[in-house]
């Protein structure tokens, strides 16, 4: 089953989506790690901490920055949610910068303590989700790769429907949550309307608790075409999951227009349950990537209405290639069985699967839904499943 909520400030640009997750009892020792970011003097945000356990949980909320750390004791009653202002905490800590780290530690029942982080700015019409990662001390130290599939570059894709002349400032916030330096290798694969390319980036090692902002706009000096619209980025490091956390943001100078792409280390042979939405005010872009060493035969299926099914021909969605659902409807493009999406089809779900590798699979996926009225774009995620009709 897939479940999520969309929280919206009615009539405004502010909206957040929260995915539903089960409790993973095997997550018994560790912390939740995130990044705070206040891009404007008027930006604020909340850290939302929920205790789903039936007993009180004590712990600590720790903000970090170049100046040091600021810790607050937590005592969460059973089933209690606390909402903490990031601006308030940063001011109390005396931090002067615009970014840093967030850690939530629990003395027990860490698996039952959920943490979410949102940013907003009503005056600018800005809202963002800052993904919070589990850092599990019981997992093996090895090589991990975080991937973000749909990072908006300086020149926005026309499907985002931003005003002419809008320029985005893509950046990646990356934080070392470990207590030793971390070496990270970054690969940026970009896509313009006519061509593709890639840049390997070698970072200076991140010091413990360092949060660094990587400005992707600087790649234009190294040959990134100014008309490139999208990038997918992979960050590889050695350590445990959650030792390195990363968030990609692409906003204009006002933060009024922009888009995010979440980093994840999840791979699967099937993703399903994500939602698409196309109408005069909405459009949807879906993409997939192949992180494996072998070719993947990728099949994308859209579901709509009572029983409507639309199956793109296999391999039509090559790794890294994007599919705009709105154009399939507008241009009445037939699927592999000659069916077209009806002009009045407005919403449904989708499924991406690797037809060759039905056991493990190395696909990752991403999706953006644009809201033309407000120039707003939100990302979403499907859920990984297994063959055999379950999940």
């Amino acid at each position, binding site marked *: 089953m897939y479940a999520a909520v969309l929280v919206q400030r009615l009539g405004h640009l502010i909206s957040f989506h929260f995915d539903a997750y089960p409790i993973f009892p095997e997550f018994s020792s560790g912390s939740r790690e995130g990044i705070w970011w206040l891009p404007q003097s008027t930006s604020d945000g909340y850290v939302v901490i929920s205790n789903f356990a039936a007993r009180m949980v004590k712990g600590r909320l720790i903000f970090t920055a170049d100046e040091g750390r600021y810790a607050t004791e937590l005592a969460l009653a059973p089933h209690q*949610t606390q909402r903490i202002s990031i601006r308030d905490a940063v001011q109390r800590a005396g931090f002067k910068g615009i970014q840093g780290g967030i850690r939530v530690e629990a003395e027990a029942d860490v698996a039952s303590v959920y943490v979410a982080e949102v940013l907003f700015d009503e005056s600018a019409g800005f809202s963002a989700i800052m993904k919070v990662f589990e850092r599990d001390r019981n997992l093996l130290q090895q090589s991990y790769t975080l991937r973000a599939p749909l990072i908006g570059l300086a020149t926005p894709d026309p499907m985002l429907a931003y005003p002419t002349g809008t320029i985005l400032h893509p950046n990646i916030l990356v934080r070392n949550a470990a207590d030793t330096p971390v070496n990270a290798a970054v690969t940026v694969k970009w896509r313009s309307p006519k061509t593709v390319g890639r840049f390997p980036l070698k970072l200076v090692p991140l010091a413990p608790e360092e949060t660094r902002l990587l400005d992707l706009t600087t790649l234009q000096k190294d040959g990134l075409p100014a008309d490139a619209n999208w990038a997918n980025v992979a960050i590889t490091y050695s350590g445990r999951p959650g030792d390195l956390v990363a968030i990609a943001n692409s906003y204009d100078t006002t933060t009024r227009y922009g888009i995010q792409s979440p980093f994840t280390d999840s791979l699967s042979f099937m993703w399903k349950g994500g939602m698409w939405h196309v109408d005069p005010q909405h459009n949807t872009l879906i993409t997939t990537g192949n992180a494996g060493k072998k070719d993947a035969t990728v099949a994308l299926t859209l579901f709509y209405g009572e029983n409507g099914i639309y199956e793109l021909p296999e391999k039509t969605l090559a790794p890294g290639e994007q599919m705009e659902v709105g154009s399939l409807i507008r241009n009445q493009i037939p699927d592999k069985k000659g069916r077209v999406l009806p002009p009045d089809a407005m919403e449904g779900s989708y499924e991406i699967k690797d037809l060759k590798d039905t056991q493990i699979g190395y696909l990752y996926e991403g999706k953006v839904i644009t809201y033309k009225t407000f120039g707003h774009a939100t990302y979403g995620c499907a859920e990984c499943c297994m063959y055999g009709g379950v999940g």
Partner: protein
Amino acid sequence: MLFAGIRSTLLVISINSLFISIYTKNAFTQKALSNPPSASHSSRLNRKLGKDQELLIPFWTLEPGWGTQLEVRNNLAQGSLEVTPICGPGRVPSTSCPLLHFLQIR
């Protein structure tokens, strides 16, 4: 019990604050995803077939000027799910999530 017999649908339910639990009866299997070298701690979906499941969402609100939509989709190729949202504004979760709007899509 709400939303009995959902089959291959995505439900969008506008609701009103703080966390939501979603119980799914007679639910599904998801394979543990351990695909090194990128084995994901966030993908430890090792749920048992035929057991009730619970999904958790940390936040919702119906404060003045705010609205919340709950989206639920049955990913089973065959079979129904019984889904019960439980909304908790504090220490006493309630099964009576305030429903403002209901939209079912696939």
